[in-house]
């Protein structure tokens, strides 16, 4: 027992040391870069100044992207809400045939990055050469193509196609959880189907829809790929693309302006987040909606059933399937713009990106390594943070929660810029143009995924399971290894996959962070698309799509659709 006393003290230290280092690491990874970003935007040559901001607001080329960003966000959210809510209602609350298929098709865009959507829609709607435009001009013999994807409305269109699933998911969840007796009571009181929908159903699911709208807005204003691929050639800029151009300048002035614009973008994102809090705090309906799952009341569509089904299938076929199929077709064509004929088809594009072209070859290697490393490191790090936050009574747990959740709301462009400013020698450490700066950015950006998934698993572990291990003689580390880790394994696997997938095709941060030796898959696809090698870019994008859809199928298998994506 004398011996026990001494080792007891030593054992007790491993846990606090581990926890303190994890928290310090979190501060260095998240707090320091964001602080630096803000500092750089307001301090020049050691003096506080707002000259960057006044410059930003005095120049049309800076202020216009700001308004464009807000306009893009608002329009995209408006259209997405219409599509998302309608589809969610049809799937959750009607007897529409093939609801499972409709749901799956609606979720496909959710699995793919919007920049690939932009590439796919280019195949359909590019002026002159897009398949739809060609079809139109061929059919009606018009001199000019009717659709121009390289425009502001083109950006809104593609963004909407990749944002409506956010609303679809939240709205469907709320509609399914709603207690049917609330609506039945309205029917008994004399209200018709439409009236019930308007007076009871919609008001009750509105808070959930609002939450989805806020997510969608954040997602849209943070996006780089779509406005870059579709807008830049038409000289239409949003904040993310304007920041990218400033960073491309490479001048100190450019970097400072980029920092100032980033702070603006960040402010917009945080404003939206606060709005979200406010909406959540006013959710009176939440208590009624949440709870155990009940079978929701099903609305019979009657004679409208068949027409609506046809309409939905045609719509989803057009917006989800057609662009992807066009891109797949293009990936087999010898040169872009050639008609789709047997003699024009080839596998050469795939051979080229897989075996011949050094950029894509190194991109495959880089992205795989980056995604593996980021998924592993982030899952482990997030798991420790979640453990501290859920299972300990450590003071400052709320700070961990805040710092782990915050980067998820910060646009990737801002995160990348903060990383560049902090880790290019500012603190005696220069990671610029290396593999590591991309890793660090990925870890920070996706930390929330592992933090939230593991937290959700940890909450379900009753404290007595850990206590039983301790009283059985296990130290804290043994308890963590033998009891906690096996019990949260589904959460760990889910979080690993949910980080692996987006990092495998990440564009927004990578485009700012990649160096001569560290191109990623998305960067390679983006660069080839921008340079006009559409058919080769299509091959690369098609491969990415296939890999992502397969991985998503695996995730569904593994976690039974319960992961928090």
């Amino acid at each position, binding site marked *: 027992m004398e011996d026990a006393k001494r080792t007891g003290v030593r054992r007790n230290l491993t846990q606090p040391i581990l926890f303190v280092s994890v928290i310090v690491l979190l501060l260095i990874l998240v707090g320091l870069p964001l602080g630096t970003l803000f500092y750089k935007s307001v301090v020049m040559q050691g003096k506080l100044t707002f000259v960057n901001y006044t410059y930003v607001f005095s120049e049309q080329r800076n202020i216009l992207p700001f308004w464009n960003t807000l306009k893009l966000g608002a329009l995209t959210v408006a259209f997405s809400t219409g599509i998302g809510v309608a589809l969610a209602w049809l799937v959750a609350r009607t007897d529409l045939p093939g609801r499972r298929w409709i749901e799956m098709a609606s979720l496909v865009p959710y699995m793919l990055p919007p920049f690939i959507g932009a590439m796919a829609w280019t195949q359909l709607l590019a002026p002159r050469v897009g398949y739809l435009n060609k079809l139109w001009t061929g059919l009606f013999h018009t001199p000019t193509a009717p659709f121009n994807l390289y425009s502001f409305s083109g950006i809104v269109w593609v963004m909407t196609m990749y944002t409506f699933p956010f609303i679809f998911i939240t709205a469907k969840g709320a509609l399914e959880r709603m207690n049917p007796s609330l609506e039945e009571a309205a029917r008994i009181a004399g209200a018709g189907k439409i009236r019930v929908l308007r007076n009871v159903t919609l008001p009750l699911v509105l808070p959930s829809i609002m939450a989805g709208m806020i997510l969608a807005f954040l997602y849209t204003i943070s996006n780089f790929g779509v406005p870059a691929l579709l807008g830049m050639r038409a000289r239409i800029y949003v904040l993310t693309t304007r920041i990218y151009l400033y960073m491309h300048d490479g001048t100190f002035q450019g970097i400072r302006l980029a920092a100032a614009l980033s702070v603006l973008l960040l402010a917009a994102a945080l404003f939206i987040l606060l709005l979200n809090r406010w909406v959540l705090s006013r959710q009176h309906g939440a208590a009624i909606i949440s709870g155990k799952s009940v079978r929701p009341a099903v609305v019979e569509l009657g004679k409208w059933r068949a027409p609506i089904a046809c309409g939905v299938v045609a719509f989803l076929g057009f917006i989800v399937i057609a662009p992807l199929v066009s891109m797949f077709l293009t990936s087999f064509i010898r040169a872009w713009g050639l008609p789709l004929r047997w003699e024009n088809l080839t596998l050469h594009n795939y051979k080229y990106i897989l075996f011949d072209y050094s950029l894509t070859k190194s991109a495959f290697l880089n992205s795989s390594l980056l995604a593996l490393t980021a998924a592993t490191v982030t899952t482990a790090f997030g798991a420790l943070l979640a453990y501290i936050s859920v299972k300990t009574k450590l003071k400052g747990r709320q700070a961990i929660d805040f710092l782990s959740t915050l980067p998820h709301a910060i646009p990737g462009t801002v995160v990348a810029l903060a990383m560049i400013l902090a880790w290019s020698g500012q603190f005696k450490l220069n990671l610029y143009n290396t593999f590591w700066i991309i890793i660090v950015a990925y870890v920070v950006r996706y930390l929330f995924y592992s933090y939230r998934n593991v937290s959700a698993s940890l909450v379900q572990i009753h404290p007595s399971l850990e206590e039983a291990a*301790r009283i059985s003689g296990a130290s804290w580390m043994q308890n963590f290894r033998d009891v906690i880790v096996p019990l949260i394994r589904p959460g760990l696997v889910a979080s690993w996959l949910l980080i692996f997938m987006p990092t495998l095709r990440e564009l927004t941060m990578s485009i700012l962070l990649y160096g001569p030796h560290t191109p990623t898959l998305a960067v390679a696809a983006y660069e080839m698309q921008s340079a006009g090698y559409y058919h080769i870019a299509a091959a690369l994008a098609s491969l990415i799509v296939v890999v992502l859809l397969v991985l998503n199928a695996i995730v569904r298998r593994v976690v039974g659709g319960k992961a928090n994506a």
Partner: protein
Amino acid sequence: MPSVIELEHLTKAFGDVVAVDDIELAIARGEIVCLLGPSGCGKTTTLRMVAGFDRPTKGEIKIAGVVVSSGSTLIPPERRNLGMVFQNYAVWPHMTVFRNIAYPLRIKKVPRREIQKKVDEAIQLTGLTGLAKRYPEQLSGGQQQRVALARALVVQPVAMLLDEPLSNLDAKLREKMRFEIMDLHRRTGITVLYVTHDQAEAMVLSDRIVVMNEGRIDQIGSPGEIYRQPRSAFVADFIGLANFARATLVESSGSQGRAAVAGVEDISFPCEVPVGAEQSREGLLFVRPEDIRLTEKAGGTLRGIVRRRTFLGNQVDYRIEAVGKEWRVEVNPDVTIPEGSAVGMSVQRAVFLPEAPGEGAS
């Protein structure tokens, strides 16, 4: 006999709330002691301090003569060599029955062959034969409880702690498991500290019962003592059914005395007077429902009217209005006195209790 667990001036405060207030207790080797009290009385906190999960605010805990918790020491749970059974079993869902029970042995790096032997013994002892390869989700609540017991016993710990182990089981099973735990205790001779809010459980199992109330120990004694000779109104009220009446102690000598019930001062009842109670004059007269005999007509010392009569199978429960209050009386079902009729009550046995602060006489 040497004490296995000793608590000295043990105190635990959560902020301003004192959950455990300066308690003293020594548990002898092989003894089975119950901490009994309503929820929030500090019994579970006491157990968790013994286990090492909570750090005492003040005081000392010794296990097998070694200080494990004090102002300067806190030996972690894994170094205390205890076994523990939790309210929700805490059987690890990702391990088979065998692996659950073997875990404490594996931590102690016991050789594989010996693990097999000891786990087999524990499985047999707890009646889990044939279930070694099952996972907890394939077991009933009672079987999971046995796994928890086997896991707590397998290393032959210094003492076993049980935290309301039967409260998640249904009534039939609970009664069965009580006897099984008793049996297990008899066969292993292990020292047991047991927490429960169920007085029947404490009665059946304990060598001694420690009745706790608001963080303090109200009384320590054998089940018989606790039931027959409660030292406070709280203990009398918490254990079993009790009738209380305001009373004045009119005379006392040693442990016997006479008390007069308020409202019928002309009659005094013979009663027991616990040590210390003779100091006070005003107090409560405490009578168990089974210690009252009923006579039809106007026999007995107190007169009343039958307000309600409830048939309970093995006995009949009467509610009788007398001297301005309701009395509960339990008699065997042969006696039938209709509701509304006058009745005489004769008190066979009564205890005079000094008025404790916050007494809940009714």
